[in-house]
């Protein structure tokens, strides 16, 4: 067998064996990975809508949005996944909002890569609780150095992490604006 044939054969065999092995591992792992994602999402949903008992994913491409129910008949609002640009990379969050998009129930930061010790303070309760019960009938705004005001939709930025704080607010504002445009939403009670 000449060298070129040997080279081609070697690389082909390695490729086929490698592909086969990875295929098998993937078949085993894929259900587990999907289950992990489902558990994480469910945990976040009930974190941002604490009174909810069951949820249902809504059919829309605009956002990943779940309607949350207290019991068989009463809806307590929605849990919405939002994604946007932070200071370093994308920030992924879930927030709970009432049926009329007037108030946020709670906020959970799911994924972020902001600066450790500064931007990543957005995950801490001292920041996320600023959003509990905040008025979002109009877009929220960020204040530096001054106290926030929930009734007016104003959030105080974290010292040293203004950009990350602003990013959180802008991502939520943008997502709510998109949701209001969807028919059938925003008027549900």
């Amino acid at each position: 067998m000449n060298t070129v044939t040997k080279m081609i054969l070697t690389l082909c065999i390695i490729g086929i064996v490698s592909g086969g092995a990875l295929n098998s591992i993937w078949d085993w792992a894929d259900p587990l990975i999907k289950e992990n994602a489902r558990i994480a999402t469910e945990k976040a949903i009930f974190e941002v809508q604490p009174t909810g008992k069951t949820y249902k994913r809504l059919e829309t491409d605009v956002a990943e949005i779940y309607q949350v129910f207290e019991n068989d008949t009463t809806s307590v609002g929605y849990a919405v996944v939002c994604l946007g640009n932070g200071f370093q990379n994308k920030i992924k969050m879930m927030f709970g909002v009432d049926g009329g998009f007037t108030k946020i129930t709670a906020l959970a930061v799911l994924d972020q890569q902001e600066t450790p010790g500064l931007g990543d303070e957005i995950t801490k309760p001292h920041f996320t609780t600023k959003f509990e019960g905040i008025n979002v009938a109009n877009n929220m705004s960020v204040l530096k150095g001054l106290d926030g005001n929930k009734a007016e939709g104003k959030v105080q930025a974290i010292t040293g992490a203004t950009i990350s704080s602003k990013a959180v607010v802008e991502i939520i504002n943008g997502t709510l604006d998109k949701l209001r445009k969807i028919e059938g939403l925003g008027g549900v009670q």
Partner: protein
Amino acid sequence: MKNKVTIWKEFAKGIWENNPVLVQVLGLCPTLAVTATAANGIAMALATTFVLIFSSLIISSVRKLIPTQVRIASYIVIIATFVTIVDIVMKAKFPEMSKNLGPYIPLIVVNCIILGRQEAFSAKNNPFRALIDSIGMGTGFLIVLTTLGGIREIFGKGTLLGFTILGDWYTPWLVMILPAGAFLTLGFILGGVNFIKLKKETRLKEAEMANALEAQKAKLNRQEA
């Protein structure tokens, strides 16, 4: 020549004499990037060692079958296969740690320690020796990452493996969990290791010279007697 190196020596050289990070200065990217906490460092080292061991076993087993012109391409595909296996298994079984280590797991493919060992050792030795060598290098890597991670976590967060070591009185040095702190700490560790090696070498040389001197004296005494 190879058989003169004992199994123990083959293993132990990866820990001190030829440590992949401290002596060969390879694999610095994951070393600096994921050692903000000790747990992350340990997980990364274990993942890397797994890839190293199995890549070395496979490559050593088929070393005579791979034509030399395609050896690098072959090694990389084999290494990448094992890295993908580690990535998938971590996502399925250890999702928290997988999120912590992020893109650095797939980056194990380009960790110079692994490809370096294949070229320098596995391609020229039988699978048993390749296994011992890999375990040794992996252990050396684990020790460095754990130490670096431990130091950075204690001074940068006040905790170790999640347990609070330094209480509320301690204001954490933020720089320790940022890249600058990684470079500083590694620099000091490298400096310390080199210092110890230099001292050992000097002492050995002095002992050698003292022995040579004694031998000369003894010779002269015999001649005079």
